[in-house]
């Protein structure tokens, strides 16, 4: 009896240790692309070449589009605005403060909600967009500060996100054929699956 209690206690300790390691803030990696065309273009390229930011942005646009034009319009401004605010705050603070593993939550939550296609109020979708924008923007801004790049890169990042969300959410809103909406849901399930695998990779280290 005492032996099994000891094993359970040790397992709990191990699980806590793994969780703590996963939640430790990792050093910021801005990995901004150097295009040679200046910080604005570097920022635009960053979004297009970084799936850890690109996929949640597209998933957010799909979710907003599935929830109608009002949610789409609000998400367009909420996501980009929050990304900019989060980015500037992260740049000023200069530290990530949160573990980068937390970005997998965007994949899981947004992908899962897109796959489920449950009708949500535009306010809830907007609130989600604000959270995603603040989180990813903060990490981008802190990364830019750590790598001593120009903050103007944030303008490029936000511009690219604005265009992507506008095009993707408008496309989904315009879908009238049933199977095309289903295809959007399937893509949502893929995003959630990628998020779950990402979480596994993060925990594995």
């Amino acid at each position, binding site marked *: 009896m005492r032996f099994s209690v000891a094993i359970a206690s040790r397992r709990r300790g191990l699980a806590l240790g793994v969780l703590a390691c996963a939640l430790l803030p990792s050093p910021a*990696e801005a990995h901004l692309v150097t295009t040679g065309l200046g910080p604005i273009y570097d920022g635009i390229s960053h979004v297009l070449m970084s799936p850890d930011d690109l996929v949640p942005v597209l998933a957010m646009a799909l979710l907003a589009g599935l929830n109608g034009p009002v949610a789409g319009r609000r998400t367009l401004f909420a996501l980009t605005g929050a990304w900019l605010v989060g980015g500037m705050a992260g740049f000023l603070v200069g530290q990530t403060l949160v573990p980068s593993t937390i970005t997998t939550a965007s994949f899981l939550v947004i992908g899962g909600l897109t796959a489920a296609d449950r009708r949500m109020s535009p306010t809830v979708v907007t609130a989600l967009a604000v959270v995603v924008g603040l989180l990813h923007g903060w990490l981008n801004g802190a990364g830019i500060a750590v790598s001593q790049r120009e903050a103007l890169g944030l303008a490029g990042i936000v511009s690219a996100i604005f265009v992507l969300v506008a095009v993707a959410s408008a496309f989904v809103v315009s879908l009238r054929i049933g199977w095309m909406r289903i295809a959007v849901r399937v893509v949502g399930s893929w995003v959630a*699956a990628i998020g*779950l695998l990402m979480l596994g990779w993060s925990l594995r280290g």
Partner: protein
Amino acid sequence: MKGRVSRTESWAGLKAGPYNSLLAVLMLLVSAAPAFAHVQQGQAQGFLTGLRHPVSGLDHVLAMISVGLWGAQLGAPAVWLLPVTFPMVMAFGGFLGLVGIPLPGVEVGIALSAVLLGLMVAREAKPSLVAAALLVGFFAIFHGHAHGTELPPGQSGLMYSIGFVIATGCLHGVGIAIGVVHKWPAGKAALRFAGALVALAGLGFLWRAFA
């Protein structure tokens, strides 16, 4: 037309048209400078490895396509519910593998998935939606556990995961596309025959797993 260039003329006397535009785009692509200074390494390689991995094993391919075939036979909503269920549960299996939780009899589970899914297609079985999703989801864990963690060192885990999930989804798509023949009587028979072949192949995998 004085002072203006007509739509069929352009610079240097070349005629503008779709082919010239295409040629110009191709030339731009060919002359593109290599990308420098992107510090994330192993991205493209990770994506390609992930994309290639599900199609490199016949057991995985047959099971994925069978999911699509069965979905096509069952019709809506199973035709989309099964391909939505599979990647998510498969990723859960991959997650278990990545965090080191062992799963007994993975190879047997994968072989059994081909046998049972093949049988479902061969018999044109129509269980309840929940039962179909549970069956597909149960075997998805084995596929994810076996294949989701096989990332070569130095490659991006995120890109590997993206490639892996996309390839799996595309295999379901192939199954659903093939399943369109279910509309015709001859197609129905062909699908059932294909299901029987998958089940036989699954028996072969099962034999190999126990050997």
